[in-house]
Each structure stands twice: as C-alpha cells, then as structure tokens.
C-alpha cells in the first residue's frame, strides 16, 4: 500500500518533469520551423523588416511561383525515384550481404565486414573525382541510373554495418533449429532471419532514406539538366549570386518536406509495428 502511493506520487512528479522536458524540446524543434513557415507567407521585402511576426502582407505568391514557375513537383519526383530505387536496392543487397557475413563467420565474414565497415569511413572527397571519371566513361553522366548506381555503392556500407550488428545479436541456435528442419540457406534467410531483422531493416531504411534524399554532392556532380535535378540541388539553384530570396526558398523547403512528413506519419505505424513484431516474435 505504502509502496503504491509512494510510487504514484513519484510517478506524478516524474511525469510533470517529463512533460516539461518533452514540451521544451518540442518547442525548440518547432520554433525555427514555425518562423520559416511564417516567412513563406511574406513577400521578400517584408521579411527583412519583420522577420518574426505575423505576416503584415499575407501572400501566397511564393508558393504559387514555386509550384507553377519552378515546377517543384518535377524535382520532387526525381528525388523520389532516386531515393526509392536506391533504398530498395541497398536493402536488397545488404540484407543478403549481412546474412552471408553472419553465416560465413571466420575470416571470410570478417573480411567482408571489414571491407564494408571501412567504406563508411571513406570521405566522399577521396573517390568523387575517380567516380566521376568512371561514370563519365560509362556514358552515364546526367542519367538517373548513373546517380542511383553510385548512391547504392556509396551508401551500402551503412546498411551492411547496421544489419550485421543486429544479426550478431541473434542466437546461433535459431539457424541450428532451421537446419534441423532441413532448410537451405535461402529458406533460412527468407523465413527466419529476414522477418526477425525487420526492426533493424526499418531503422536502416530510415537512415538511408534521409541520407540519400538529402544528398547534395553526387547529384551536384552528375546531374546537369534541370529535368533530372533532385530537390536539394534545385533548392541550391535558387541562390542567385547576390540575392537570396528567403521566402521563396523557404516555400520550396516547406513544399519539399510536407509530403515526406506525411509519408512518415503514415509509414511510422508500419515501422513501429515492424519493430514490435520483431521483438515479440523474437
């Protein structure tokens, strides 16, 4: 009884403190975003005079221009195509790679793992020019395929790293049990390991999506024509030499992010369920 009330009281004060912290950080996250959203409704001249307040001249011109003149929808589609293709390819290859690393063990597993883990530490500046020359020789510059191929290669190490780490934490007995049922490698992979790895695959997918979506370097290097530009590249394009039209750029930022946020809000249930399913079944 005593124990119960003490716990309850502790829980209450704890919960006040907890709420305070959560709300505080929430504000910290929101305020810059809010300021930016407000800015998108102001004409450029007003922004410099009234950066914080409610728009005195409320205008939708920035959005109109972004959508109609600047065809932001096209850049958005390019980002989607590149990101989705890259992520799915990476997940496809890296789950198989992580599984192989896990199953090989020994020096073979270690070599493979090391090869990819080391790749994570390679800064893009080292290989970006040689990669460019390679892609150029293959006549793949200014193509989405070229960009996707390079993105796959460059971002794969991260996925292999995360997935291998996760697999290492699985008990070896599982595979033993599978082999006793007469499973080959493929079946063990599909029916046992893959379902169990869902939470870590989700986590990798989130990491990778963000990285590929936001990548500026490789699109900058490879993509020349406007119809293939991805969003970050297009946003950069709006920076005139001596004029940065903040409200317009911010409008572009909002338009670029809104669909992703929505997607995340919907898919998040997916990821959460995946995570729960992974742990309960395990």
């Amino acid at each position: 009884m005593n124990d119960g009330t003490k716990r309850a009281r502790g829980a209450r004060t704890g919960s006040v403190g907890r709420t305070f912290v959560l709300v505080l950080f929430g504000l910290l996250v929101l305020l810059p975003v809010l300021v930016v959203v407000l800015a998108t409704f102001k004409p450029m001249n007003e922004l410099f005079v009234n950066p914080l307040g409610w728009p005195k001249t409320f205008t939708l011109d920035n959005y109109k221009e972004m959508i109609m003149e600047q065809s932001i929808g096209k850049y958005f589609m390019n980002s989607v195509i590149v990101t989705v293709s890259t992520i799915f390819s990476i997940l496809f290859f890296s789950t198989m790679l992580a599984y192989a690393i896990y199953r090989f063990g020994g020096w073979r597993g270690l070599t493979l793992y090391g090869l990819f883990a080391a790749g994570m530490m390679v800064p893009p500046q080292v290989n970006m020019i040689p990669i460019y020359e390679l892609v150029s020789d293959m006549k793949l510059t200014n193509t989405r395929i070229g960009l996707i191929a390079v993105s796959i290669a460059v971002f794969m190490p991260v996925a292999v790293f995360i997935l291998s780490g996760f697999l290492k934490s699985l008990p070896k007995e599982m595979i033993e049990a599978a082999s006793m049922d007469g499973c080959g490698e493929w079946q063990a992979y599909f029916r046992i390991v893959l379902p169990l790895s869902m939470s870590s695959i989700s986590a990798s997918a989130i990491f990778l999506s963000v990285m590929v979506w936001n990548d500026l370097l490789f699109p900058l290097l490879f993509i020349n024509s406007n119809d293939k530009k991805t969003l970050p590249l297009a946003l950069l394009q709006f920076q005139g030499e001596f004029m940065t039209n903040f409200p317009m750029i911010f409008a572009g930022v909002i338009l670029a992010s809104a669909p992703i946020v929505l997607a995340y809000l919907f898919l998040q249930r997916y990821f959460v369920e995946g995570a729960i399913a992974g742990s309960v079944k395990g």
Partner: protein
Amino acid sequence: MKKWLNISAFVLILALLLAGCGKSGSSEGGGASNAAPSGEAGAKASEDSGKKEKISFVHWRGEDVKVFDELIAEFTKQNPNIEVEQNVLPSEQYLASAQAKLIDGTAGDVFASFPGAQFETFVKANLYVDLTGADFVSNYTDNLIQAGQKDGKQYALPYQLVYNQPIYNKKIFEKLNLTPPKDWDGFLALCETLKKNGYIPIAFPGADIGPGQFINSMMMNNNTDEDIWNKVETGQAKLTDEWFVKTLSQIKELNDKGYFQPDSLGTNKDIAGSLFSQEKAAMLATGSYMMASNKQQNPNLEQGLLAPITVPADQAVFEGIHTTTFMLGVNAHSKKQDAAKKFVAFLSQKENAEKYANETGQLVTVKDVQYNTPELAESAKWTDKHTRFQPRYLITVAAIEKAVTSAVQNVIAGADPAKAAADAQKVVDQNLKK
C-alpha cells in the same frame, strides 16, 4: 512477412522501371524550367525539317535567368534549329562543379567564367575555343576584353563591367552635406558624421564577399604596383611588408571606431544589402553589381559609387576598382560549337546586350550601349576615371587569396594587424606558386 517482401519486390521493380524510363526520357525535350517559348516558335520548330540542336549555357547568375530566358526566346525565333538550356551553378562552387562538366562536354557549350585564377585554370585545361578574329569580337570595347586574352589570343569575352567599390546613399549624403572624400582623414570624418547622425556608416558583409571586395579599394593606393600579388605569390614580397599591415590597420580602425555594423563577420551580402536598402546604412561595401537588387528592394534609393582613398590626396593614383567579368566562352569539348558561337554572337549584339544591361542592372562591355536607368548612368560615369583592375583577381593561388581575406576577418575579430599579417604570411609561405 511474405506480403512485405512481395510489396518490396514490386516497388523495387517499379522504381527501376521508372528510373529506366527516366534515362530514355532524358534525350527528349529538356530545359523545362525555363519559360516555354511561345506557341508560334514551337510550331515553327517542329515543322522545320532541319536537325534540332540543344546547347547548354552554364553560368552562375540565378537572378539573370528570367532575362536570359527572354533573350533565348528571341534567339530561338531567329534560329529555330537551336534550343538553349540554361544551367545555373552557384557562384561559390562554380569552379568546382563547372570544371568536371565542361571537360567531358556534357554541359556548357557556352559557359561563363570569372577572370583571373579561374580563367587561367580553364585556359590550361584547353577548355576555350579560340575566338580571335571572330566577327562578333569587334562589338566589344577593346580595352575591356583584355581579361579574356592570353598570349595574344581571345579566349573569352567579358560581358559585364563592374566596379568593386562601396555604394553610397546619395540622399543621406545630401542631407548631411557630405561628398565622397579625397583622403583618409576625410573618409574617417565622413564616417564619424554618419555615425553621429544615427546611421551605420558602412554595411560590411564580413561573412562572405566583404573582405574580398573591400580590400581592393583599401589597398589600391597603399601599393600601386600592379604586379604586387604575383610578387607575393612567388615570395618576392611579403604580407608582413608595410603596405599590407597598413591596409589591415586601416580596416581595423574603421571597425574599432564602430563604423561597421555589429557582428559584421556574421553578416552576409543579402543582409548587408538590406541594411543599405532600408537606409539604415549609408554605404555598402560590395560593388556596382548590387545596385539593381538594392533598388528592387527600395525603389526610392538613389545610389552612387565611391572609393575610400587611403592616402593623402596628392599621393592617390587610382580612383576606383573595376572588373570585367562574366566572361563568355565556347567549350572546346563541345560537339555543337557552331551553334554555341551563334549564341555568343547573338548576345554580343548591341540590342541584346542593351536589353541585358538595362534589365539586370549590370554594365556591359559591348560598344555603344545606351543605359536607361539612373544606377547604370551613375556607374557608367566611372568608365572615364582612372580605375585599377581588381587586384584580388590577380591572386592565382586560392589558398593565398583565402589567407588574405581571412586576415581581414581576423583584424575585425580583434587581432593585431601585424600578427594577422604574420599569420597570413605563414600560409602564403606554405602555398607559394611553384
């Protein structure tokens, strides 16, 4: 689980298909971000049995895109077989991103370049088609296209003429009875008067272009040797020499007396520009290229150009700083050089250069152009004065240029001028031109 996999496989295949479609679609109509040419021109073009060529025009001036679009539409009317797609790369990364693309010929059949180090790099890379003797070259004022020449050959044609010296607010000066001073004491007194009357004397974009622009007028009379930067780069002269330390201490003096706005090192050119257009600052330490955008923000502005004279009036040799930039060139790796040359020729025509100048607010190097805005008329007055080609562009080693601009930032951040010069000289020593 199976469902997940099936969905994944389906999406993967779909994505690859889309990407594949993207690749094959790339050869068809591009340039979609530009305003579409009028229906007429489009129809005419499709009727034409001739080969359609698309050339790419690479440059860094995002704010000129609309004007170029209009010029391009006109060009396409006159040359229905040629389509022009603009490709704007931000100026800070221009050298970096442009070079790779230009070399393999995938972009930039016509491209713009900066004079000085970038020009030298591109010449060495054999990127330019030799334009010597092309008939459109004679459209340009002779002494203004030298920056695009090397070893007697005309590789690129500078299109813009800019003055890299501070802009001032004429109305504020009039109100306070001020005129552009002829010596250093005069300049200090001017700033003091402005400050006492509640204005920021100089809006200084210390975070980006301020140091690199302002150093020019500050040093032009402290060291009149046109070869000085080459000497610094080869070790024959040093930044610790009196002229540079003096320049730094004069800049520091301006800062310490409160003539720059607070946190100038955190201010970029747009913010500095807005301080000026809001008439909170009386001078803007950038160049003539910003006059048009300032006017856009405040149509009531009346602007003029001046340059600080850092020596006594009788020792002053130069009155200001000019640069000829935005140099048009034809890519030697391009497979459509004829079309590219036609476009350059088109831009070199008086009417087109005139339209460009008046709508973008930039002075141009093409002959006999009539300017019809007050800002341009104001800047055009300077063509008769004795100005010096921007010294900073004569620094060819990037690390040394960075050391110089960092030294300016350093003294504004509080460092002692002699020490800042010494620190910069250390970097120079490690990066001497070989």
